[in-house]
Each structure stands twice: as C-alpha cells, then as structure tokens.
C-alpha cells in the first residue's frame, strides 16, 4: 500500500532562519512526489514536484525539495523563512491500488508557524 508520512504536526521557525518540513513515503515503483500549500480559507496551491532527473527540485516562493531514494524522503526546504510562509503544507505521492495507478495520496500535513 502507498503511504506518506509527515512526522511533525507543526514546525516553528524564526523569520529569516532556514526551514525544513519532513516527508517520507512508501510506494510501488518510481514515485512521483509533490508538495502543496494551503493558506487559511484558501485552496490548495502547488509548490513543486519530483518526477525524474535532478534530485533537488526548485519550486514556487523560493521553496525547494530534495528527493532521497535510499531514505525514501522528500523534505521541503527554504533557506530563509518569511512570516508569510505560515500555512499548512502537504506532501503527496502518486500511488497505485484501486482506481488506477495515478491517484494522489496525501500526508497528514504540517503546520508551519513563523515568529518574528
């Protein structure tokens, strides 16, 4: 079965410091990995994805993520956090099982809390 784990319910970061939001996955075959962000009372916004190629993926708003096959991880990072980055972050993996191989499975989400 496919699954995604986000081990931290919340990450607290000071503005200007680097941030990391962790994600590990379990999936059959080669994974397609995604990060989405959800701001309060707003829809789901795409940040970045890994399909193949370079393990370091750069996305929107200065975010990046590193695919690590041996550790089955896809951690989200940003060199310098902004207060406006405060939101709910979801890691997702394209998995298989019933309904076809391309359904997207989401992690539980990690709330990023920035303080000045």
């Amino acid at each position, binding site marked *: 079965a496919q699954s995604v784990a986000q081990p931290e319910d919340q990450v607290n970061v000071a503005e200007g410091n680097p941030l990391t939001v962790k994600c590990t996955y379990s999936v059959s075959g080669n994974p397609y990995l995604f990060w989405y962000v959800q701001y309060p009372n707003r*829809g*789901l916004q795409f940040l970045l994805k890994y*399909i193949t190629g370079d393990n370091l993926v750069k996305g929107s708003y200065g975010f990046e993520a590193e695919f690590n096959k041996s550790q089955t991880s896809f951690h989200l990072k940003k060199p310098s956090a902004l207060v406006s980055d405060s939101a709910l972050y979801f890691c*997702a993996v394209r998995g298989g099982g019933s309904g076809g191989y391309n*359904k*997207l499975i989401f*992690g539980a989400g990690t709330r990023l809390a920035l303080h000045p």
Partner: protein
Amino acid sequence: SAVISQKPSRDICQRGTSLTIQCQVDSQVTMMFWYRQQPGQSLTLIATANQGSEATYESGFVIDKFPISRPNLTFSTLTVSNMSPEDSSIYLCSVERGAGYTFGSGTRLTVV
C-alpha cells in the same frame, strides 16, 4: 495546467438532505478525483471518476452515500447524500494533466 471551476463554494444544509457539487474543467481529462478534507485534517480520496464507467471508491466510501456522475471528459458531480453533521467538510475535485495535479477551489459544506 488545467483550470477547474467548482461550485458551490460553500453551503449550509439541513441534515437528511443531499447536496450535489459540480466540477467543470477547461479541457478534456481522463480521470477526475474527489477528495474530502475534514476540519483540521488532510485530504482523503473519496473516489476516482472515469468517463463512461462506474467510479472507483476508496475504502470507507460507498456509492450510495457519495454517488458520482461523469457524463463527459470535462465535467463531474459528487453528491453527498442523506447528510449528517459528520459530513461537514471541504470537498475538492482534482484532475491530472501531464503528471501534475490541479485542484478546484473546494466546497465548504456545513450540515446543521
């Protein structure tokens, strides 16, 4: 990427009634996905809708409660039937295009 129009954006419904949510995509897509996001939680896949065939439901979701229609390659509906307060959630549709996924803006449902 695809553009999805989802409606209604929100609704308050009486228990025991049904609500139908619509998603219109600006281009043809093979599969459409319906998700539920309960308050403070992640997105859970309800079902996958293919045009011309029955939707495939995930464990814990049944067709009688969440009937889905997919009459063509650009449109789908999800009905939440015989609602109870536990059905209060955000419901989202999604499509895949070129290994990317686009989501509708969501329907915030409150059942009273």
